[in-house]
């Protein structure tokens, strides 16, 4: 049995799971409704692809992590957890983790990408003259920029999905896993920005280091990359973030999270850390219950 076939079988099961789960379909419809509402309020649709991307950027910073956590936090928990059985098959840890990650990422791309693609189609119909041109030069609105925006959004989702999967593996108990997933969500949505702000106000992070510090936060890196490579290209106003640092930041979170999943998948290493995180998460959950 080749690794490729095992990987394909595992990934296909994850895609099928996402497709068969009605709540994920509802999530797609909900996202489309939020996008439509945001764009009607902001007027981005008529402005073209880049104004649309700008209007959607802030909601996506919250919604993409939400979808990623919803998909990732039970990837290895509850009825989805058949690791003890799977590990009796010739399934390597890497194939299992890669298959689950890719399958769920395809699901995420569908849930987030489908409504975004629908928005892109609408922009091509109702947007200005420039929106119908495939620009090859900067300073012009173009579908290419919207595709880039969509790709960056999926990449951001991939990073948070990997982080949520790591939480799912490190903390397996149901309520503790939920608390850990919420911690990932809050950390991604607000944690990085707050830390950078604290660093700036206390003087720990100087102006010159701010771009690099923000790059270490997934959502700040995503925001910066969108502003730099989508909005900045069309408006000629860039320098929102250090691009290479932002790419390295996202890649670092992705690889570290997937590495943590691979190391912990057979419940052997990190047992002490896992029980510690589990205990902490359970206490957080208890505190939230009170």
């Amino acid at each position, binding site marked *: *049995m080749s690794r490729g076939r095992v990987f394909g079988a595992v990934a296909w099961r994850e895609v099928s799971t996402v497709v068969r789960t009605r709540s994920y379909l509802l999530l797609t419809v909900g996202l489309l409704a939020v996008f439509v509402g945001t764009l009607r309020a902001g007027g981005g649709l008529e402005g073209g692809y880049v104004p649309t991307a700008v209007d959607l950027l802030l909601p996506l910073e919250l919604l993409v992590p939400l979808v990623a956590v919803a998909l990732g936090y039970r990837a290895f928990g509850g*009825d*989805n957890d*058949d690791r*003890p*059985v799977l590990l009796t*098959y*010739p399934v390597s840890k890497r194939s299992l983790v890669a298959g689950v990650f890719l399958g769920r990422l395809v699901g995420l791309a569908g849930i987030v990408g489908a409504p975004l693609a629908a928005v892109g189609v609408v922009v091509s119909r109702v947007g200005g003259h420039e929106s119908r041109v495939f620009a090859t030069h900067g300073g012009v609105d173009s579908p290419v920029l919207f595709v880039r925006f969509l790709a960056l959004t999926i990449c951001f989702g991939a990073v948070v999905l990997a982080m949520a999967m790591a939480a799912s593996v490190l903390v397996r108990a149901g309520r503790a896993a939920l608390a850990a997933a919420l911690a990932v969500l809050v950390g991604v949505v607000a944690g990085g920005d707050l830390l950078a702000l604290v660093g700036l106000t206390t003087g720990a992070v100087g102006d010159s280091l701010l771009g690099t510090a923000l790059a270490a936060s997934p959502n700040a890196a995503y925001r910066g990359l969108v502003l730099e490579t989508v909005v900045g290209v069309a408006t000629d106003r860039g320098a929102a973030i250090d691009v290479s640092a932002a790419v390295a930041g996202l890649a670092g979170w992705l690889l570290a999270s997937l590495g943590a999943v691979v190391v912990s998948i*057979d*419940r052997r290493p990190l047992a002490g850390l896992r029980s510690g995180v589990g205990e902490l998460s359970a206490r957080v959950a208890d505190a939230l219950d009170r």
Partner: protein
Amino acid sequence: MSDEPVLQVDGVSKSFGPVEVLSNVSMSVPSGAVVAVIGPNGSGKTTLIRTLVGDLRPTTGVISYVGPDTDRPIGYLPQEPTFRPGFTAAETMAFYSSLIDGRDPEPLLERVGLGAAADRNVEALSGGMRQLLGIAQATIGDPPLIVLDEPASGLDPNMSESVFETAAEMAGSGTTVLLSSHDLALVEATADTVVVLDRGSVAAAGPLSQLRERFGTDSLRGVLNAVVSDTEAVAVVGGSR
């Protein structure tokens, strides 16, 4: 049954924090036999089984699979099998089968009596049917050793008997079956070798006839009562915490 072992367990201990659940367990699992692990609640049966299949790493000691070289040496039915919701029994079996040889899993479902429920979603299966599906899953790929953690749990008496008969048939065709159970009558009727666990240690092990002779009793219950220190209370190893 042959004298050649399929699994060798040497000095295995397993601790969860300060609590030692298994203590210096050594045993040999002969090939082509039905080996039953029995013992009171809390004696460490499930921990031993999870350690044997590689789900838990022993704190000390070594477990060696020494059976035939194959893609799937050990098939495993956990005590509480979980299946992916939204998939039918046939789809579930097809997925696991695709990880090995991709053979049609329908005959395996038929063998455990689930042929008629092949197209039913796993969440619509009764507890007993899920158990049977788990047993069918454990046999995918013809592993030389099949480990079943309480396979009769949740099954009616006839179905329990059928599961144990299936285990005996598999052993007859050369497959080793290691199972845990509280049903001493079925164990007595089926098992070639019995391992009695008490408070995480092997209190007695061997062919059933030898155990009866050794403890001067004519039943497995008599053996269990003779070797287990307190049959009235749940064994709590490692104190109250």
